[in-house]
C-alpha cells in the first residue's frame, strides 16, 4: 500500500548549520502530491510546503524541497537552522488524482541548539 518513510526520531543540530530531513514514499500512482507539515510545541500541524512537479524545487519560509520521482524522495532542506525551527516535521503523501486520503510519515523531531 501507499506509505511514507521519514528520518526517524530526533535530529539535533546547532543553530546556523544546514538542515536536511529525509522523506521517501511508496505508491503505485505515477502523479502523487507530496507535502511537508510542521508542528510546533502545543500547536497543530500546518502546511509548510507541497509539490506535484517532478524535479522542481519548492520553497517556503526558508525551507525547500524537490520532488524526485525517480528516487521517490521529497527531502526537506534549509541552508541555516534557526532556534525557531525546532518542531515536529511530517512528510505526507496524497497518492494521486482523486485519491484524497493524506498519508503521513511518523514525523521527525528537529531540535536546534544555540
Amino acid at each position, binding site marked *: 500500500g501507499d506509505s511514507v518513510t521519514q528520518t526517524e526520531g530526533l535530529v539535533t543540530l546547532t543553530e546556523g548549520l544546514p538542515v536536511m530531513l529525509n522523506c521517501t514514499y511508496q505508491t503505485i500512482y505515477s502523479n502523487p502530491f507530496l507535502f511537508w507539515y510542521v508542528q510546533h510545541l502545543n500547536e497543530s500541524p500546518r502546511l509548510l510546503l507541497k509539490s506535484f512537479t517532478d524535479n522542481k524545487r519548492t520553497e517556503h519560509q526558508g525551507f525547500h524541497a524537490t520532488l524526485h520521482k525517480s528516487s521517490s524522495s521529497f527531502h526537506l532542506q534549509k541552508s541555516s537552522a534557526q532556534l525557531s525551527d525546532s518542531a515536529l516535521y511530517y512528510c505526507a503523501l496524497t497518492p494521486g*488524482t482523486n485519491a484524497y*486520503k493524506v*498519508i503521513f510519515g511518523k514525523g521527525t523531531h528537529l531540535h536546534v541548539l544555540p
Partner: protein
Amino acid sequence: NAGVIQTPRHKVTGKGQEATLWCEPISGHSAVFWYRQTIVQGLEFLTYFRNQAPIDDSGMPKERFSAQMPNQSHSTLKIQSTQPQDSAVYLCASSLDKGLRDFSAETLYFGSGTRLTVL
C-alpha cells in the same frame, strides 16, 4: 475565521466507557478528516468525509470506532468501550474543495485536537 474547532480539549475516561469527540470544520470546507496522533505512530489516518458522505474509513478500528457527519458544520468520532491503547490526541482537519476535478493538492487545516486519556 475561527479555524477548525474541536471539543473537548481534554477527555479522561475509564476503561470500557464511551467517548465522543466533536469537530466543527471551517465554514465552506467540504472535506473533513480524522487522525490519531501518538509519539510512536505519528499521525494515523482514521477516516474522511466529503460533502458529508463517508469516503474512506480504512484507518478505523471497526469494532469500537465510528464517525459521522450529520451536517456540514460538524462531525463526531465515537469510541465505544475505550481501552488504554486508545489514549492519544485525536485531530480533525478540514479542506476546501474548489470543485476542480483534481483536489489532491488541497491543504489540510487542523484543529487543536482532543487529548483522550483512558485510565
